[in-house]
């Protein structure tokens, strides 16, 4: 049943699988029109296969993949909740999918309505004044937010603010985004509670600080309890606060970044708002801003006047554009549907149950695994496989063994501040029975790690391939197929 060939290896000279209308206009002499030197001389190595070849090839490839529709996917920080099918159907409507972004607004009122209303909805959920839907993902939301921070300071002729502070538990995109936009990154440690070390923060706050980026709850799944103090401190020194909303799933309807003192906040629609992640993307990372920052939002902003939606480009303080057009529209449509399906109480319940589920697993594993910051967590928690590692069974080994048990493993080796980290986020869409069987699987692994560690070193055994050699791949990179 194994067919390991690439689509290129199935190519047969002259075979075709496409269907186009005949050319019904005069044929242009391409050589004459463009001149030969500009035309492709060597034949393109694009596979020559039939439609049935393509269908079988990618159907079979899909069968070597695992999605949240295949089973439990507690990939911490990534919030792999169920993606309701109705949202897919709606996003696929011709009335959305076949719209050109540059159409006259008179002909795209439906699209603009969705954008306008999503701006309002997300602003309400985040406690912000307005939202731009332009960023294509969380990381681009961060860039946008950082550009706004920069623009804000510049608009006040405050040119010396070159630093962005990030905690050591932050996601890699936070410092990377700051660097792309041209900031200097300063990292501060976490304290013994797993929270921002207030003293360390204090020590570096000065008038070169442009802002602080924070995830709350943080990547340990813990709420930054001192957030009000922190925001006061940062504001006091003239900096702004950026909220990395990847963990927003924990607190919808319970608390809002705006109320915590954040000036800017992104949300990952592909996490909290249930849009599918597509095996890597596309996602969407809208950001909300406080009132003072509204003038800096990217253009265009959708406005409504006398029941008519229009695109406002005339915003002199705007940072400009960060992405073509208006963001990942069809992802936004899905999230729009999600919000309407859930309603206010539904969103709050989602957070409530996400937190309940995480704490339940945490409690059921705390005797067998080290849990560095073992107290009530939010929607996720991080355990450490240090005890198992002593026996030679690493977080990676545990992960690969979970594959054989039918689960997608948790995030491993993140956050960086926990050794042998396994970051477990069950989400609210999982049933108690699923949690119980996962707990059971994790407990079995712990027992095996203690009793017969060697038996855990050879997983996975049931996947399409056995353990893959990542070192080899990086050392001698083969990045494309060649004949």
């Amino acid at each position, binding site marked *: 049943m194994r067919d390991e060939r*690439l689509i290129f290896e199935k190519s047969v000279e002259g075979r075709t699988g496409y269907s186009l209308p005949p050319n019904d206009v005069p044929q*242009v002499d391409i050589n004459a029109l*463009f001149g030969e030197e*500009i035309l492709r001389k060597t034949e*393109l190595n694009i596979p020559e*296969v039939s439609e049935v070849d393509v269908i079988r*090839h*990618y159907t079979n490839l*899909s069968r*070597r*993949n*695992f999605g949240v*529709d295949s089973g439990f996917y507690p990939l911490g920080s990534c919030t*792999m909740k169920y993606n309701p099918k109705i949202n897919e159907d709606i996003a696929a409507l011709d009335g*959305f*999918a*076949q*719209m*050109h972004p*540059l*159409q006259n607004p*008179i002909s795209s009122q439906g699209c603009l*309505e969705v954008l306008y209303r999503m701006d309002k909805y997300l602003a309400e*959920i985040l406690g912000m004044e307005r939202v731009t839907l332009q960023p*294509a993902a969380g*990381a681009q939301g961060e860039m946008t937010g950082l*550009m706004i921070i920069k623009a804000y300071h510049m608009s006040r002729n405050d040119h010396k603010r070159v630093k962005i502070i990030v905690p050591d538990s932050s996601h*890699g995109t936070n410092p*990377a985004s700051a660097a*792309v936009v*041209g900031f200097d990154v300063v990292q501060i440690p976490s304290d013994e509670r797993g929270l921002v070390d207030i003293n360390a923060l204090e020590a570096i706050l000065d008038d070169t600080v442009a802002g602080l980026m924070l995830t709350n709850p943080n990547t340990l799944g813990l709420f930054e*309890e001192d957030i009000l103090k922190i925001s006061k401190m940062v504001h006091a020194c003239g900096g702004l606060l950026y909220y990395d909303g990847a963990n927003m799933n924990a*607190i919808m309807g319970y*608390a809002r970044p705006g109320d915590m003192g954040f000036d800017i906040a992104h949300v990952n629609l592909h996490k909290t708002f249930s849009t599918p992640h*597509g095996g*890597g993307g*596309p996602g969407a990372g809208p950001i909300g801003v406080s009132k003072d920052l509204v003038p800096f939002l990217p253009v265009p902003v959708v406005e409504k006047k006398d029941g008519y939606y229009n695109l406002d480009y005339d915003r002199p303080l705007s940072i*400009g*554009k960060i*992405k*073509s*057009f208006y963001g990942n*529209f069809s992802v936004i449509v899905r999230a729009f*549907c999600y919000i309407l*399906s859930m*309603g*206010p109480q*539904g969103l709050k319940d989602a957070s409530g149950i996400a*937190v309940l589920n995480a704490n*339940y697993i945490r409690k059921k594993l705390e005797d067998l695994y080290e849990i560095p910051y073992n107290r009530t967590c939010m929607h996720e928690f991080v355990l450490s496989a240090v005890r198992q590692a002593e026996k030679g069974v690493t977080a990676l080994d545990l992960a690969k063994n979970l*594959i054989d048990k039918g689960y997608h493993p948790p995030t491993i080796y993140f956050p960086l501040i926990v050794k042998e980290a396994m970051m477990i986020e069950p989400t609210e869409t999982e049933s108690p029975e699923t949690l119980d069987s996962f707990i059971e699987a994790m407990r079995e692994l712990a027992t095996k790690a203690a009793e017969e560690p060697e038996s855990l070193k*050879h997983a*996975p055994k049931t*996947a399409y*391939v056995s353990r*893959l050699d990542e070192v*080899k791949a990086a050392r001698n*990179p083969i*990045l*494309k197929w060649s004949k």
Partner: protein
Amino acid sequence: MLKTIGAQSIDELFSSIPQELRLNRELELPGPLSEHELRKHVKDIVKDNFDASWNLCFLGAGVYDHIIPSAIKHLVFRQEFYTAYTPYQAEMSQGILQAMFEFQTMITELTGMDAANASLYDGASAVYEAVLLACRHNERKEVLVARSVNPEYRKVLTSVFKYSDIEIKEIDYIMPDKGAKSGTVDMDMLKELISDKTAAVVVQSPNFFGIVEDIKAVSEKAKEVDALLIAVCDPISLGVFESPGKLGADIAVGEAQPLGNPMNFGGPLLGYFAVKKPYIRRMPGRIVGETTDHDGRRGFVLTLQAREQHIRREKATSNICTNQALCALTATIYLSIMGRKGLLDVATQCINKSNYAYQSLLKTGNVAKVFDAPFFREFVVKPAVHPEKLNEELLHDSIIGGYDLSKEYPELEGCWLVAVTEKRSKDEIDFLVNKVDSIIKGGI
């Protein structure tokens, strides 16, 4: 479950959130709506959209209305693909990993490059990532960008680097009344501005006006000062045109939406990014590599991760994490279905049909020529009625008209950028031409 945790209520689990931060009211949001209500509600919204399923689309300007084979969505919407996360656990993600490897191969093949990544957000972000790569590579700060590059990309470039130490300078194109090369990069100005401070030159072909640029000439100029050439190319056009790699580009980037992705009101799009060998370890984004498993069988993994944010943090080559994998999968399947011959057919039909539309419009006598250079899929003309007005009128006949160039090029006031893909039949083109003609004659 609460008992296991030792809590009385779910609310209690939120006690680490200070009381004063708790939202003590319900969120002001509509809903909940059941599936059926939601469907009705959205249908009501959608009816205000004039989409390309019932309107003839002659609008391009970076996003194109091509024919999309039915088979694609039957594959892309296999749940194992679209409900998966980034393939961090390679062994249970061989499907998407192999597909991304195939995508990378196809992109290198189209662009004539040595390696490609597994996608970026869009053409615009691919351009700024390329600029970033170039500046970091040769430690220079000045970048020359042709004004014939898509204005959306240029705007994003300007915004992103506004407060950084990277400086963007624009090079004009040759103006309409300035000979056979009008509409292409002004090589004189390029020569003037280029220097050993230049990190890179960015040129697009076919450019925003649909006109094919002389990438080779620009690249030769760039090479003289050791600047990198960043070529922005439409992947459909590469079915007929020589690859940027062969023409001297160091980095090839662009928008791959035309490869089977719906227009989706502009998003998601699909940025591609390909480089010559020296720049591989500086590439942004996910890269899939081939390796072997424990039993010696071929397999695929995310590789060269030492470039990436989750490992290198602020020293990463880019901040990108989530990308556009599903759109890349779409493009891969599109190219597989079309095949070498199909892609050539699409490209040729785009040329034939856009040329037919162009000639037909000119023939009316009410639409004037603007540039002289040959074009691909898209062309500039100047109708006797202003594009804005014209488009409004055309909408009454269910035609989505071309792009009003005056928005971004004041000097091209009254000029209209019309895209004609293989999707348009002769009848539809004739219909457009007749309507344009009669609107103009109607003297609106």
